[in-house]
């Protein structure tokens, strides 16, 4: 009973924060709302007997990724979004997408409730070791060793990619880019002059 009450409280917080994330125009308010979603989801993971995932959720998402996002927002000194001037069909598309996904959600809810009555009545299987750090670690370094290695390579590639993206061009390359741009503009001006003479 307590679990149900906690679940609905944190589900409400998560949905409210998610709506506030989409509604707010100020990116910093959106980021703080997203942190609220992460914390609420972490509490829901605890009601699902997954303490390790709950801790990692706080550490990685709220602790690392969101700090990085907020750092970028402050670094770029972003203002509020200007009033929307997007094409109208994007709103129609977004509304249509939302309706379809919500309908799908409620269909899944209905179908799962209908088909798994006996299993759901018996609640979840009570295996207390499943969410523990030890069982996760054992599985990670025995059965799922290859995926873990692949994720390691992926992270390395992301680090290299991030450094290359943000790096400033070294001086000779920069001069080359500037020269090319100036040459292109000169050509365009000459073409304009030619057109005027004609």
């Amino acid at each position: 009973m307590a679990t149900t009450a906690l679940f609905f409280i944190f589900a409400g917080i998560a949905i409210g924060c998610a709506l506030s994330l989409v509604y707010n125009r100020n990116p910093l308010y959106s980021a703080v709302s997203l942190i609220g979603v992460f914390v609420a989801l972490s509490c829901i993971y605890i009601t699902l007997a997954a303490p390790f995932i709950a801790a990692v959720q706080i550490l990685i998402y709220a602790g690392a990724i969101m700090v990085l996002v907020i750092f970028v927002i402050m670094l770029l000194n972003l203002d509020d979004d200007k009033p929307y001037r997007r094409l109208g069909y994007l709103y129609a598309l977004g509304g249509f997408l939302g309706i379809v996904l919500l309908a799908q959600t409620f269909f899944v809810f209905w179908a799962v409730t209908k088909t798994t009555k006996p299993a759901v009545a018996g609640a979840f299987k009570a295996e207390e070791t499943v969410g523990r750090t030890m069982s996760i670690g054992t599985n990670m370094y025995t059965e799922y060793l290859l995926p873990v290695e692949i994720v390691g390579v992926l992270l390395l590639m992301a680090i290299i990619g991030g450094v290359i993206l943000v790096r400033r061009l070294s001086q000779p390359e920069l001069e080359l880019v500037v020269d090319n741009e100036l040459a292109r503009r000169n050509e365009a001006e000459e073409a304009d002059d030619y057109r005027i003479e004609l």
Partner: protein
Amino acid sequence: MEPSLATYLALSGILFTIGAVGVVFKRNAIGMFMCIELMLNAVNLTFVAFSRYYGDVTGQLFVFMVMSVAAAEAAVGLGIIIAFFRNRVSVDVDDASVLKN
């Protein structure tokens, strides 16, 4: 009594819907990025719920993988946003139209 599997799936579906609609509605590149993170979290919730439901640890392992991919995405995505801001002094995705002509 615990909430049923269907309840967790419904919560996850609602969060995913909000994230997907947010990606279409937002014009700010950082806002879109945060909506994508929200969608990844909704998927993580289904993984953990099924892991609990079947008493199998694999779901939680894959949540860990998804989190690693999200961290990699944050590094590369924010790098792209900063590079774009350096060229255009804006993070508005409507300004990213260099390839249009």
